[in-house]
């Protein structure tokens, strides 16, 4: 298997912009209808991570781009929630830092995004009594994705079993999990969201899971558990 890594240094693009599926600041403002003032206020309030502002040379000197899916999802979340929560509360909800709350397997049954058949297999592959927030986000992301892709609960549980020791060590949800198959086997690459991975033709990409998007969704929906 060959895997090529494109590295984006913080705020400084060193690779082709289209590799990361970027959106320019101007297009972002036009599509979402937000103003420069709102964008920079949200950046100051840490609602939009600084590393999402990627600067590239342009004929006008410099232009700023963002990871398209992440920024569009984030702006949508902020616009939906800004009347319900203060900016300070929103920053807490949308922070890439993982929540310190730990929950039990019993609590996991209340999270409807997780396939219940998978939950029965979880204690066999993950022996801890408590699940960290990052574990929950990861299980939700894999459960949703693999169900959509037609994997069995057993295959999904095996995939979680291989990957969860690596994911559990992450302190931030700014990571992307790339699920792929080689023959009959399913595996995963866990990488910072700023990395773009290219695989050779023998690899079939099943899905790319942005944990920050899932984390936003889970924190908002189950705020009594994680905020």
């Amino acid at each position, binding site marked *: 298997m060959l895997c090529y890594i494109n590295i984006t240094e913080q705020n400084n693009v060193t690779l082709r912009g289209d590799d990361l599926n970027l959106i320019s600041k*101007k297009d972002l*403002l036009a599509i979402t209808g937000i103003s*420069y*003032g709102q964008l*920079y206020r949200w950046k100051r309030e840490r609602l939009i991570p600084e590393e999402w502002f990627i600067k590239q040379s342009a004929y*006008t*000197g410099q232009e700023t781009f963002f990871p398209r899916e992440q920024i569009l999802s984030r702006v949508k979340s902020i616009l939906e929630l800004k009347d319900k929560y203060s900016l300070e509360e929103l920053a807490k909800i949308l922070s890439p830092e993982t929540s310190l709350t730990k929950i039990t397997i019993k609590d996991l049954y209340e999270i409807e995004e997780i396939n219940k058949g998978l939950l029965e297999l979880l204690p066999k592959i993950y022996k801890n009594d408590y699940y960290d927030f990052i574990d929950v986000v990861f299980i939700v992301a894999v459960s949703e994705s693999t169900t959509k892709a037609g994997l069995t609960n057993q295959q999904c549980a095996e995939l979680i079993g291989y990957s969860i020791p690596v994911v559990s060590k992450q302190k931030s949800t700014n990571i992307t999990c790339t699920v792929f198959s080689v023959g009959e086997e399913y595996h995963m690459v866990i990488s910072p969201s700023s990395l773009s991975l290219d695989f050779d033709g023998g690899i079939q990409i099943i899905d790319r899971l942005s944990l920050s998007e899932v984390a936003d969704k889970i924190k908002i929906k189950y705020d009594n558990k994680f905020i």
Partner: protein
Amino acid sequence: MQDFSLEGIGKINGGEFRTLNVEGVGSCSSGVKAENIYIEGVFNCSGEIEVEHLHCEGVADFTANIRAKRINVQGVVSVRRDAKIEAEEIICEGVIKAGGEISADFINAEGFIQAKEIFGDRIRINSHYHGKRIVNFFKREKSDIKLIEATTIELSDVTVSTVNGRDITIGPYCKIDHLDCNGTLFIDRTATVGNITGNYTMKN
């Protein structure tokens, strides 16, 4: 939290204060968190500043980020290297020099700003008026900025490489290389503007 006053020559190691007053020559070797910082003398700080209200009538030199609700500059504030200034509101009747970015909802400057980048909602910089005492003292200074991006921008006698905004007023003696506007645009006849892009309505 306590009030602390630096009168004469002194040095502090940073810390948390309700009000930090610098009336002499003071320096600080690490971060300061305070409700108010008043500088009437000379203050050098190498740590990060987190403050509700920063008021400088003297000369202040910072080498790390400043995060404030309100900043009022009637003297000279320098922020070196790539350190940032973040605030809800900045009022400047003196001089601000920033190596990094300045980001604020509202900036109203009747003085001089030299910065790499300025971002915000409403930005008004008028460096043409020389009536103020402190501005007269620094009148050889020039407002020179690489990039300004804001919803509403109003400039007079300012040199900027790139200006991006919705409603933009380019006043007398401005020199702009690139301008992108997606609302209303006014350009004074004494201003020089190079390349203009965007979907805008020209105001007379």
